[in-house]
């Protein structure tokens, strides 16, 4: 493999090769809920943020994005060529984990559960903080992952939204360099075995 060519092709979050790599990390994260994936450390320039990488990989003019907490700047909006939408209708929602959700995302329908939203949630730190205990597809028995900066309100709401499978929302949690994914099938409890059902 030509390493020069390789590093050049990976130099920008907008480059197809970088998005392919980033997608594979996201796919691994969704396949193994709770597994921490480091997003493209190959990209070292200032262009790189995890959020930009996720959005560049998954969104374009064919989908809609909601940004209730104003985390995407104007320049990125124009580069992404995607469509702004309210959190109620958007296919992707970008939000902060430390602010309680004040909206009801789309959960899909019985016929088309895939239209349930993907929520991309910024947390403070993955691998440090409150331990979450995960069970479900993609997890051999139990998986523990620590996370800080994720309000309990999010986990309560998530439980409510995902109450009637196949309807529900899928989540990507990200910090400064890493992600984990929580598909709607993942059941979350605390270390003490408490669920988030309230």
């Amino acid at each position, binding site marked *: *493999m*030509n390493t020069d*060519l*390789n590093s050049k*092709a990976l130099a920008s979050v907008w480059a*197809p*090769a970088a*998005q*392919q*790599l980033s*997608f*594979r990390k*996201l*796919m691994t994260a*969704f*396949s*193994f809920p709770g597994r921490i994936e480091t997003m493209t450390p190959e990209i070292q320039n200032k262009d790189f943020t995890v959020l930009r990488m996720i959005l560049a*990989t*998954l*969104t*374009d*003019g*064919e*989908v809609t994005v909601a940004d209730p907490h104003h985390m995407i700047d104007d320049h990125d909006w124009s580069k992404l060529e995607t469509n702004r939408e309210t959190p109620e209708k958007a296919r992707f929602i970008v939000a902060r984990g430390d602010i309680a959700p004040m909206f009801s995302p789309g959960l899909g*329908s*019985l*016929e*088309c*559960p*895939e239209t349930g939203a*993907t929520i991309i949630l910024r947390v403070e730190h993955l691998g440090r903080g409150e331990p979450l205990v995960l069970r479900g*597809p*993609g*997890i*051999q028995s139990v998986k523990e992952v620590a996370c800080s900066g994720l309000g309990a309100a999010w986990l309560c709401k998530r439980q409510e939204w995902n109450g009637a*499978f*196949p309807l529900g929302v*899928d989540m990507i949690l990200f910090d400064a360099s890493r992600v984990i994914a929580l*598909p*709607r*099938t993942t059941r979350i409890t605390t270390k003490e075995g408490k669920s988030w059902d309230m």
Partner: protein
Amino acid sequence: MNPYYELPQDEAGYSFGFLDEYAKREVRRNILKAICIPGYQTPYASREMPMGRGFGTGGLQLTLSLVGWGDTLKVIDQGADDSVNAVNLRHFIELTCPGVDTTEQTREATLIQSRHRIPERQLTNAQVLVLQVPYPDPLVVVEPSEARRKIMHGEGDYSRLLTKLYEDIVRFDEITISHRYPTRINGHYVLDPSPIPRFDIPKLNQSPALILFGAGREKKIYAVPPYTNAEPLAFDDIAFRTEDFTDEQGRRRSCHRCGATDSFLDEFTRDDGVRIYQCSDSDYCNQGIVAHILSAGEAAL
């Protein structure tokens, strides 16, 4: 066309992975949703590929959206790397994805595209298996309307499919489904596992590797995530059974080439009329022979 028009020769040429980036992004979004809703057939705008619908275009679109530098790809058809269709697909991927390595060894592959078989060697959680699917919906046999099938799937209502299986038993005293055996994923959706033999169905259950299914003509993507339950539909009194490879004396037949007694076997009739059996998975068979030679060598020392 304008009489002065000339086809551009220098402005032609294909990009990495053949598909344009928008097409790949759409496939990728649907792969993630398919993983999040195990067994659900996610609709997508399948693109035309330069080989026929039915020749693995669904699997190919998945592979082209997944593959990148650093991947090692294996392409098999009927278990073999050099089946005509596998050769053709591998050639196309090599042509459009420069820098991607290919292999014939299951062990070395990061990405495996297959038609009709799951490799015998257990896959690892660092591998992804892509299966080509001709008919994605197991409910087609009992309900022709897709709109109604989607509701049945959503409600997890498979009573008519079970009735169909039961009628089979009454008529033939045996479930007659030979391959594409309807399988329930994570306790909800029943999927068509593509035309793999029943022999391969147990490999879906709690598989360490992600398994993706692509139906190009029917424009569907679905998945069995790693470590997920996959149960073939069956009844308490009539169990699900895999293909029977025992001979008249009740012994498990073996591969005439490598001697394996735990693999799915192809049946051949020799010129002299004698029926012989051989592993359908060519890499498994070759590895078996290599192991024999090695152990024979050790014994001789």
